């Protein structure tokens, strides 16, 4: 195949500069601001409004994965006794902390405080406990009980109480205060960002889709690490303009789109392009996914901590499998999807253990076929190239015949 299998976005250069600036400024340009390590599902708006800079170990691990540096760092964590069966984001991160030789950007800068919220998984709590013990950093764990049966009033009050405690915790550890006006402004910026991201994703309903899964995965970084900042808003405005132009010009993400697919779970970072190109060879584009959409939920403006609590308690990964199946059914209908692929990710039990049940339910309700692929998001040692290729081929051939 001579023609390139994906079209590079012009904003890719901006993205690269933005992320470099983010990591460099966290280390060198904080101007006295304290630094927090936060989990991807923690309410960063509170930290920003209190003048605390934030970095995301999960994003750092994904970046190491994409740069194919994760396996060495996982090995460093394993040498210290961490089981190879544990989450590869956690192992990559702990490896960079415990033995950071060769870690990209020399690892993350030392935290002044750590905030973990278990609305994404229980692993993040154990992982951040280990980081806090290593750095002797104050750690706050926010408990957002899993919603098997929807959000109960008592669960909401519990999360609100903890956010109030979070404000006191940040104040105790950094001597910074929460300013209500600043919080409202941060929430406004975060919402502007998530709305833009939601609109960009919705543009993929067009045929051909202007973006493919790797585009969504690469461009989600600012929504995670810079949500609530002006620079993230500017980036997504720029990206949206480019994606809109693609739609106007009828330009798709891949050279020729015949099949439209839905992706479930975190990316396979070390094979980001190689893996999705297996599908491009069959003219298949991933027009939607369940993961990057987790950051398109807006916060109710003017509702303060109550609103933030309601939003963070109800994120996608903190909801039942039934909720996830319903979301996939909706995406399949809205985006005109012909098939879905689920990455059974060894590193992410909360995302992966229920996929068999969700797959069955979605197939029953939509008649759309689903493929399961077992791999790992960061640990390339768990990727069986030939087995994956064979499964993708068989799936795509049956989809082409259907």
């Amino acid at each position, binding site marked *: 195949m001579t023609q390139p299998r994906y079209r590079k976005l012009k904003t890719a250069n901006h993205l690269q500069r933005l992320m470099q600036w983010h990591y460099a400024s966290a280390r060198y340009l904080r101007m006295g601001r304290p630094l927090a390590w936060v989990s991807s599902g923690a309410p960063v708006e509170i930290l920003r409004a209190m003048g605390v800079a934030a970095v995301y170990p999960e994003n750092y691990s994904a970046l190491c994965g994409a740069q194919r540096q994760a396996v060495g760092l996982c090995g460093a964590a394993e040498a210290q006794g961490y089981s190879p069966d544990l989450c590869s984001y956690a192992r990559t991160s702990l490896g960079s902390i415990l033995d950071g030789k060769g870690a990209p950007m020399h690892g993350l800068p030392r935290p002044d405080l750590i905030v973990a919220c278990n609305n994404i998984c229980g692993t993040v*709590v154990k992982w951040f406990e280990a980081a806090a013990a290593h750095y002797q950093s104050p750690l706050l764990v926010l408990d957002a009980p899993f*919603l098997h049966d929807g959000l109960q009033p*008592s669960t909401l009050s519990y999360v609100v109480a903890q956010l109030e405690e979070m404000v006191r*915790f940040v104040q105790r550890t950094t001597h910074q205060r929460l300013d209500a006006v600043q919080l409202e402004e941060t929430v406004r910026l975060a919402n502007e960002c998530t709305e833009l991201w939601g609109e960009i994703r919705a543009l993929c309903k067009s045929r051909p889709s202007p973006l493919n899964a790797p585009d969504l995965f690469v461009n989600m970084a600012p929504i995670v690490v810079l949500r609530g900042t002006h620079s993230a808003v500017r980036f997504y405005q720029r990206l949206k303009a480019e994606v809109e132009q693609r739609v106007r010009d009828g330009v798709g993400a891949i050279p020729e789109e015949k099949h439209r697919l839905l992706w479930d779970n975190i990316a396979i970072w070390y094979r980001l392009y190689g893996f999705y190109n297996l599908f491009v060879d069959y003219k298949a584009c991933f027009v939607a996914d369940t993961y990057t959409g987790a950051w398109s939920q807006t916060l109710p403006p003017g509702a303060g901590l109550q609103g933030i609590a309601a939003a963070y308690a109800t994120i996608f990964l903190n909801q039942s499998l039934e909720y996830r199946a319903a979301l996939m059914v909706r995406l399949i209908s809205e985006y005109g999807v012909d098939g879905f692929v689920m990455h*059974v990710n060894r590193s992410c039990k909360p995302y*992966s253990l229920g996929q068999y049940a969700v797959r069955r339910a979605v197939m029953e309700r939509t008649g759309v076929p689903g493929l399961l692929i077992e791999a790992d998001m960061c640990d390339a040692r768990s990727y069986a190239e030939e087995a994956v290729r064979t499964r993708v081929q068989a799936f795509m051939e049956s989809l082409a015949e259907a």
Partner: protein
Amino acid sequence: MHAAGFAPVRLIQTGSETTLANAHLPSFSCALARAVTERMLRGDLDFLHGVLFTHTCDTLQCLTDIWRMSRPRFRVLSFALPSVLDVSPRRAPGPSGDATGAREYMLAELHRLADTLEHGLGAPVREEELCASIALYDEQRRLLEALHARLDRLTAQQWWSLSISAMLMPVEEHVRVLRRCVDARGIAQNAPGGPKLVLAGALLDDPLIPQVIDELGGRVAGDDLCTGSRYWDTLVDGEQEPFAALAERYLRRAPCPCKHTTREARGERILSLVRNTGAQGVVLVLPKFCDPHAFDAVPLTRALDAADVPHVTLETDVSAPAGQVRTRLQAFLEMLQA
């Protein structure tokens, strides 16, 4: 549940053959999840009125919904326990205070469960029955504690049977058995005089390890297990309103790796167990694919190393051959006797 008229039975791993469960869970799910799902799918659990999943780890969290979706006619209730535990005084914001609202939340969840039992299963929880159930379970806990003061008279297998049966037998019968055992005349001096061990880990639902300890002449001096001392070591405060007392007990329980706590680390608890029992070594029982315990094993073994306490880690799995457990334990016991 007991107060509502049910006989609670804990689901443990019995058998390791899974066929049906393989279509419902990926290969990296723990043996417990696979084994109990297999039994549910086979219909072996149909004699139950339902199952109550409490939130502990990511795996059980998923299992709740997987069961609901794979066999809708099997009743699945969920109880989202708080994951952050603190024991400090009520409403005292600060680094050591319970400003997190966990008590109120736990209390509300307990009432919600009682409500579900009453309106969903027609089994109301009345205060009088609840107090009686609390008293009965507290008696069971006290007897288990008393039994642990006499561990020198028990073989490892006897200790294991008496502990695990607390999870499986009707509590009334179990209390009767325990009373006989705690009575000094009830048990003979069975245990050999070999090295004393502390067992630590998650569930010990398989008799293999106690069997091997007996065969090799070892003794169990104490434990930090989910099916052991973490079950019985905290009593309910009888002075409080029963629901509030249950919530309070939960927040005061011994630290489990699934929970975040600002209290003593688990390593300190195990070290004091070693000191108090005069144990010569610690056996860490680590189920494969159990993330919370795998994370905790690192600081735990470091703490044991720092205190010069010998330890051995046994990773258990459906596929772990019994011979391997035996060999590792044998080497460990020989090392302790050397």
